[in-house]
């Protein structure tokens, strides 16, 4: 019972780490919106999360560390949507949309974790404690 809850928490924690990584990556893209020659980067979140969690689903397997996650998360380079004289491939509209999307999903993951913790705490309470 308790390890089902902690498995779910583990999964959400991995998702949260990857979300924060993606947030940092998009922040870098936005910061370099005016840098000549900069190429925008991103990673496939679904694939990264699948790879990061499948590495540790085997029972008794050690928790996938950052090294294992690094091997799975490959950065992709954005193709420019419009040609640009200074070879900068940051599309500010796309990056801002991705940033907002990632923030909302980061917060959603946080709420899932909080919900899981609350459920676990409720389950631990005895019935006469209210």
């Amino acid at each position: 019972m308790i390890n089902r809850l902690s498995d779910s928490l583990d999964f959400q924690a991995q998702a949260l780490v990857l979300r924060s990584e993606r947030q940092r990556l998009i922040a870098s893209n936005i910061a370099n919106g005016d840098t000549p020659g900069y190429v925008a980067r991103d990673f496939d979140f679904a694939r990264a999360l699948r790879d990061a969690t499948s590495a540790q689903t085997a029972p008794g397997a050690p928790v996938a560390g950052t090294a294992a996650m690094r091997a799975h998360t490959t950065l992709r380079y954005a193709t420019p949507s419009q040609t640009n004289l200074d070879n900068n491939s940051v599309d500010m509209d796309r990056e801002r949309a991705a940033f907002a999307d990632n923030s909302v999903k980061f917060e959603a993951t946080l709420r899932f974790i909080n919900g899981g913790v609350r459920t676990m705490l409720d389950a631990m309470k005895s019935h006469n404690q209210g």
Partner: protein
Amino acid sequence: MSMFRIFDVSGSAVSAQSQRLNVVASNLANADTVAGPDGQAYKARQVVFRTELMGAGGTLGADASAGVRVSTVTEDTTPGRRVHDPKHPGADGDGYVTYSNVNAVEEMVNMISASRSYQNNVEVMNTAKTLLLKTLQMGS
């Protein structure tokens, strides 16, 4: 927590953009400067940005957080505007006054672009701050 790096990244971008605004301000202030006794008028300046990788941390490795730095400030070498005005105290022997080579329209556009980028990065920092504060309250 690699989210803290966002403040380094966006902070460097904000500082680079403010340096760009500073250069634009000095260009605009000198838009009507005439050549001094040496015959050289003010030359417009432009900042050149470059990416600066900001240290280790996180699962994506060091190169995932890319900040911005002003690598050089270049001077525009095009000759300044020359106007025939023999009565002007700054006129040369032929009666021409050399003004600076600042293009005011270009500078205004540059200023708008810099201010938008500045706002973008401030917003990124605000969002990161909100998310981090919510992370701190996790489990409550």
